[in-house]
């Protein structure tokens, strides 16, 4: 094996520049003559804009102050939604307008009211205070369930009852029949708390217009620059793609929140031409809390039917999802096709039916956040399975194993649209139980009791549909985009290689992982491979990074391009060595003629490709540069089992995570170190949701947790060292056998933590986040109930 090839723990090539402060983030970029924009944002959740007076700001030296009227006068369209959902009756969802700058109504705290452009950011802030806005405050709809009730404040005049869609999946009749013959029915109500994404780097954007060429450039913190170019160019600003370049350089984390096309991107791109100078905007952290799309926020009622033996007969789920004030780019797909399709979990439940209502509210828009729909599904499934075990007096691990889809049943068609290709779910659980010493739990629990502490253990078995693609499926389900990925492999004359990928790295480590694939296939040293991404002026049209898709889709596109390069090289080698192409084999970076000692190194072939002095040009083209677009046949299905063991102090309600074990099946692994990093970070975010993170809005729609003083990020001292392992079952339908690892930790972790807390306290309905106060109250309420 190549020492830096597939499977090696290669240290990340990109880290040298990151840890020495040499990263090139959007805010590190400064353009000649640059101005600075500040967005004046609504302080109200819902209000009518009576008037806006920009005269004082202009008189005090603003380069420009642009309002919703200016946007409308310029003929700029609203921000589009990328996924059309249909109602139960077949009618399309409601898609109210989402103006780049609010025209006459603001619909959430943070909605943009004006764009103030000045010579410095601080001056722009000063001038923004001089813009006089007269608001008529309106009542706000905040909670999604309440927003759907009659008489709730109306967020959009053209969306009656605030209902975006009323959608369903699965067949209702077989589920009803299953419940009719159930021996036991477990019911569950859960709220999946709303989260703020909190990427380390806040969003930023620079718009620039070149009068000489008519070209626009947008530098932006995006996970998918081509998607932004298409959405903004074609749908919002009406700019032709060959005159619009979108660059997303180093990006400091995204977690989904940088997928979407945001108003600020369109505003700086448009206004740069208006003012004739580049415009930079970067978000403050406080601003990020009220302008980055948030995640989760589901209210769910679920019911599980079991027979006498504990076999699951049917499962029905009814969810209300909060969309926030407007439809963010992929918002509508999250609580539908990325959520309800995963409600089978890992279980062979024969009948499943899910209904989802999506509501508009006067809150920040909600869209994909690490896991995106799948953590919500996993939480519902794994919570109700645990509750069913408790109610029927069964061991939670045993009940799971009784109902798991066996490896022998693969491929397995679920009742909710997906076809799982591979996985050994029983082994995941067995491995994890062994690592945590499940059988030894009672003794550990007794030891905790002696200290006056409560101890609990919780399981979560998850599966996710990742490698978000195939285009055919996505298109059939309402996606307004394809979901393939591109890769170009450009071999240079001296044998070094540049990869141009349509994927985007904002922390994932593509520059290393993708280089390892090249290293493995072509046998070139890793230092001779450069991975380029994030610039529509350089890379082929790519769909970007989200849904754990970079390796499973982008990596396979790269693999396919490498195969083309090897095939082309073989033609050249055959010519050079005067052998039949079929007799030339490629291994360890060398072309060899089978059965002879003739061989040529890959580098020699590369040189010949560009110095083709004796090529038969009618048969062999010069050059060694190949591009592939890969569109998979199916999603990939990473899966695994997480087990969490907690100790709770009943006096304070504080939960301490004692152990956290994760056994994951990501298919084949390119770089185990990077995968472990992904798992660690993902688990941390899952634990954050379970224990402390929470976007709390008050009744008027103000975000009460709008800073790190109140929004509790999980911290390193809150968690133990994770014990992670893998159970590799290669994906059956892609060339690398990979499944993706980006979201798994976040999807599985929260339910494991909460199930452990429920186990420790005996309180089955503890909700997230399980703050110390909430746990303390639950313990007290339970004790009081027991006393009665």
């Amino acid at each position, binding site marked *: 094996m190549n020492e830096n090839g597939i499977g090696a723990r290669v240290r990340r090539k990109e880290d040298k520049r990151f840890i020495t402060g040499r990263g090139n983030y959007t805010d590190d970029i400064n353009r000649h003559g640059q101005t600075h924009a500040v967005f004046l944002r609504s302080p109200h959740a819902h209000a009518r804009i009576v008037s806006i007076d920009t005269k004082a700001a202009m008189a005090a030296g603003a380069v420009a102050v642009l309002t919703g009227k200016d946007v409308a006068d310029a003929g700029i369209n609203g921000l589009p939604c990328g996924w059309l959902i249909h109602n139960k009756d077949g009618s399309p969802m409601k898609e109210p307008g989402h103006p780049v700058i609010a025209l006459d109504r603001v619909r959430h705290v943070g909605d943009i009211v004006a764009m103030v452009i000045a010579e410095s950011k601080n001056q722009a802030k000063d001038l923004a205070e001089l813009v006089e806005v007269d608001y008529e405050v309106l009542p706000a709809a905040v909670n999604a369930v309440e927003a759907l009730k009659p008489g709730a404040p109306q967020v959009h005049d053209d969306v009656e009852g605030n209902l975006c869609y009323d959608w369903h999946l699965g067949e209702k009749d077989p589920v009803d029949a299953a419940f009719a013959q159930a021996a036991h029915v477990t019911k569950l109500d859960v709220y999946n708390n709303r989260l703020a994404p909190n990427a380390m780097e806040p969003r930023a954007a620079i718009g620039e217009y070149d009068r000489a060429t008519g070209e626009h450039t947008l530098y932006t913190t995006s996970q998918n620059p081509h998607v932004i170019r298409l959405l903004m160019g074609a749908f919002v600003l009406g700019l032709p793609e060959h005159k619009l370049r979108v660059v997303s350089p180093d990006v400091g984390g995204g977690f989904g929140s940088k997928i979407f096309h945001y108003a600020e991107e369109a505003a700086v791109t448009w206004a740069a031409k208006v003012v004739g100078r580049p415009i930079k905007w970067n978000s403050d952290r406080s601003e990020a809390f009220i302008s980055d799309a948030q995640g989760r926020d589901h209210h769910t009622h679920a019911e599980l039917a079991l027979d006498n033996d504990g076999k699951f007969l049917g499962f029905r789920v009814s969810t209300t999802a909060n969309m926030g004030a407007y439809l963010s780019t992929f918002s509508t797909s999250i609580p539908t096709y990325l959520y309800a399709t995963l409600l089978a979990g890992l279980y062979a439940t024969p009948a499943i039916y899910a209904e989802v209502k999506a509501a508009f509210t006067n809150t920040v828009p909600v869209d994909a956040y690490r896991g995106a729909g799948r953590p919500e599904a996993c939480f519902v499934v794994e919570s109700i399975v645990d509750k069913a075990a408790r109610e029927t007096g069964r061991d939670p691990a045993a009940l799971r194993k009784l109902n798991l889809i066996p490896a022998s049943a693969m491929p397995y068609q679920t009742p909710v649209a997906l076809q799982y290709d591979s996985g050994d779910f029983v082994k995941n659980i067995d491995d994890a139980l062994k690592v945590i010493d499940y059988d030894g739990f009672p003794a550990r629990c007794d030891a905790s009791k002696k200290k006056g502490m409560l101890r609990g253990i919780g399981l979560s078995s998850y599966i996710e549909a990742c490698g978000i693609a195939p285009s055919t499926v996505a298109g059939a389900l309402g996606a307004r985009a394809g979901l393939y990925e591109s890769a170009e492999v450009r071999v240079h004359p001296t044998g070094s290689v540049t990869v141009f990928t349509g994927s985007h790295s904002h922390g994932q480590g593509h520059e290393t992982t993708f280089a390892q694939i090249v290293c493995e296939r072509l046998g070139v040293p890793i230092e001779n491979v450069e991975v380029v991404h994030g610039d529509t002026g350089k890379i082929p049209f790519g769909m970007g990074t989200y849904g754990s898709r970079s390796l499973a889709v982008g990596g396979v596109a790269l693999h396919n391009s490498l195969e083309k390069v090897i095939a082309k090289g073989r033609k050249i080698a055959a010519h050079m060595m005067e052998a039949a192409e079929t007799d030339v084999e490629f291994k360890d970076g060398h072309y060899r003629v089978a059965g002879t000692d003739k061989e040529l190194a890959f580098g020699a072939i590369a040189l010949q490709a560009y110095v083709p002095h004796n090529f038969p040009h009618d048969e062999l083209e010069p050059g060694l540069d190949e591009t592939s677009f890969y569109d998979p046949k199916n999603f990939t299905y990473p899966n695994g089992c997480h087990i969490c063991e907690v100790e709770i102090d009943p*006096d304070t309600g504080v939960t301490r995570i004692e152990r956290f074990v994760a056994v994951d099946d990501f298919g084949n692994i390119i770089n185990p170190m990077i995968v472990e990093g992904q798992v660690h970070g993902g688990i941390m975010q899952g634990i954050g949701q379970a224990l*402390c993170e929470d976007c709390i809005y008050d009744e008027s729609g103000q975000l009460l947790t709008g800073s*790190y*003083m*109140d*929004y*509790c990020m999980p911290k390193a001292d809150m968690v133990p060292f994770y014990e992670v392992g893998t159970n590799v079952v290669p994906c059956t339908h892609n060339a690398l056998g990979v499944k993706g690892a980006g979201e798994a930790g976040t999807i599985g972790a929260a339910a494991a933590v909460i199930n452990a807390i429920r186990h420790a306290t005996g309180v089955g309905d503890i909700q997230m986040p399980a703050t110390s106060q909430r746990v303390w109250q639950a313990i007290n309420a339970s004790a009081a109930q027991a006393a009665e």
Partner: protein
Amino acid sequence: MYAFKYHKPSSIEDAAKVFSGADDARYLSGGHTLLPSMKLRLAGPSDIVDLSGIAGLKGIKVEADKVTIGAGTRHNDVALSAEVRAAIPALADLAGGIGDFQVRNRGTIGGSIANADPSADYPAAVVGLGATVHTNKRTIAGDDFFTGMFETALEDGEIVTAVSFPRPKRAAYMKFPNPASRYAVVGVMVAETASGMRVAVTGAAASVFRVAEMEQALASNFSPDAIAGVAVPADNLNSDIHAAADYRAHLVGVMAKRAVAKAAG
């Protein structure tokens, strides 16, 4: 941030003079409350008088009967001082639990008590250990220093120069941190001092307060059991998204018992 004039005087006299001559001046010590407020445009002083250049405000002096800490001394200097740890371990523990390492490398005791954040840790030490606050004009008894939420007995322009803590017979501080900010949801200093038993609570109310009933109980029996039956009423305690008043009241009891257990060794 709004524009302001910056001054860095080298003496207390100059600092007070600049302050009194300005429209709306603020003293800057560690800056951990003031600077974020200014960045958020919630504060806009006309003048900043930076006290960090005044040599006489820094330092720790340990004497037989007391520990005196200069107002400009950083939290980490107190937390990591072997002398403080030997003399009043509860004080070193308290300083070592403020914020995070970066905060402790900037924040100062004088800045903390002058700001009088209801959730700050140091007020529990000042009141709980029966400290004396020295200023450029006078000395103020610790019990009289904190007068309300973000309010102190300091007059306009008055500068805290040092705080002296009498060495207690035994003492301990227990804190229940807000998991988001690491400020005290509840912090309790329990001390047996020459002047009697002291139980001071920070974080729970608008300002630090003593719990007389616990002090009396501990005077006759210094054990957690002695105060197990003392309920702190939830009325007038803070209630917010992190902790309702009843939870805070309960935590006062839990933290006080744990502090007593720790102090009792």
